[in-house]
């Protein structure tokens, strides 16, 4: 299929992050990760639990923007912490900055007492990252996002987790999916490694837009294409209005 677009490679790459996770809460921030979680459950990871981002667990293959929910559970914000702290969750968060060990910043740029740019705050990132599996979605892969060191560690990376036994006990970063490629942390010291490149993207483009050294094999594989059935689910069931295309340029 030659007409598969970049946003669809991003969706399948996000979906793959949740493969083999079993009955955990798949929490996603952003349209593409949300589609990824819903696609994974609709296909190869049927045990995943999916929230509507408010207070409900949803059993059906909910299209983006739809309110036609089949509710299978109640999960108000306070109960989300029970899930987080029990470890039965795999979240895919956004990141304004990420370093090579996966330290993430969504709080602020500059100095904490008077930031150059105040963002949303650390939210649940500190607690998420030391309690359950975490992946990241970066929609604009650039040297502004992939930096040598982040301004405020919100989500905890592998180096920090290694240095603190109680932080490291349940810590685990899985994937970083961007508009260009997929990273994992499958190196000896758990630094970021280039896992696959989306078709149409050159290796040099990835390296030039990443502000630190990235481990990679000489011939980095391409991100796998969605199957015919997966494409149908993305295009006709989960996102018939093409909302995903607003998040990733072709």
């Amino acid at each position, binding site marked *: 299929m030659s007409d598969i677009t970049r946003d669809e490679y991003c969706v399948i790459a996000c979906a793959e992050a949740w493969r083999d996770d079993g009955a955990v809460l798949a929490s996603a921030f952003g349209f593409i990760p949300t589609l990824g979680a819903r696609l994974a459950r609709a296909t190869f990871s049927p045990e995943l639990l999916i929230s509507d981002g408010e207070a409900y667990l949803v059993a059906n293959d909910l299209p983006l923007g739809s309110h036609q929910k089949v509710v299978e559970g109640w999960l108000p914000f*306070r109960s989300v912490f029970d899930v987080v702290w029990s470890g039965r969750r795999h979240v895919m968060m956004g990141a304004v900055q990420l370093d090579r060990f996966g330290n993430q910043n969504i709080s602020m740029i500059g100095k904490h007492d008077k930031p150059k740019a105040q963002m949303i705050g650390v939210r*649940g990132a500190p607690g998420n990252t030391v309690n359950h599996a975490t992946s990241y979605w970066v929609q604009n892969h650039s040297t502004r996002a992939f930096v040598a060191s982040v301004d405020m*560690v919100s989500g905890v990376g592998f180096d920090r987790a290694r240095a603190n036994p109680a932080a490291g006990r349940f810590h685990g970063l899985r994937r970083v999916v961007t508009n260009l490629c997929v990273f994992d942390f499958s190196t000896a010291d758990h630094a970021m490694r280039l896992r696959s490149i989306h078709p149409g993207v050159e290796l040099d483009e990835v390296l030039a837009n990443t502000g630190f050294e990235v481990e990679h094999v000489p011939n980095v594989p391409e991100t796998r294409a969605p199957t015919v059935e997966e494409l149908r689910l993305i295009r006709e069931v989960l996102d018939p209005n093409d909302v995903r295309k607003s998040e990733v340029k072709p």
Partner: protein
Amino acid sequence: MSIDLRATRDDVVAELRDGMTIGIGGWGSRRKPMSLVRAICRSGVRDLTVVSYGGPDVGLLCAAGKVKRVVFGFVTLDSIPLEPHFRRARESGSIEATEMDEGMFYLGLLAAAWRVPFLPTRAGLGSDVMLVNPSLRTVRSPYEGGEEVVAVPPLSLDVAIVHMNRADTRGNAQFLGPDIYFDDLFLQAASKRFVSCERLVETGEFEGPVQTLRINRSMVDGVVEAPRGAHFTSCEPDYGRDEAFQTSYVKAAGDEDAWAAFRARYIDVDEAAYQEATR
């Protein structure tokens, strides 16, 4: 003697003193006690420490110059990610910040409610939350393994304000939406506790399942009837968020003249005029 906890917005404001710590219920741009927040904006009180799962409540109080410090895990308008007034206050260095993981925040309220010196958690370990809050301490488990975890101190409040769907004059209150957020804990963490509500009802006329009667009168000192009192934030199922108004709020925040006009029309007016202007 019948119990009657009915109060006015002025009664609530009269409890506030300069430098107090005030907790505000709701979450982001959801079920915020906005009519009480606007009343505080119009008052003479200052130097407040605001404890909130932050939304436009934090923004309005920052814009009105009422805030010395914000205790937060996030400040957001939900459908619009960043709160413009909070952002400006932080970037100008005009407010102090106590930033923590949103789960630590929950445990801080719970520790205050339970009157214990701390509650343990893994959240915060390894993150810069520990760096920007130098007073935060860890504690070693006295049990096998001896793990060292964060000891979250109580978030004790002088005053708490929350907005509910229904209440009676005795101080019992009810949420009818899908989530109470942390409103019961805000009340239990505070010395003086105020509930505003969409509608006062007779005690025998609470509708909906008994689980929604989460706030009982031992947790409340005053009840203010405030129809549309959470506007422009959401108050399900009575009304959703007024997205158009929220957008106009953000637009006005970006320009000094526009903000002066917004303030004159929507904040420096009494509740009836606000409700009329936003119909």
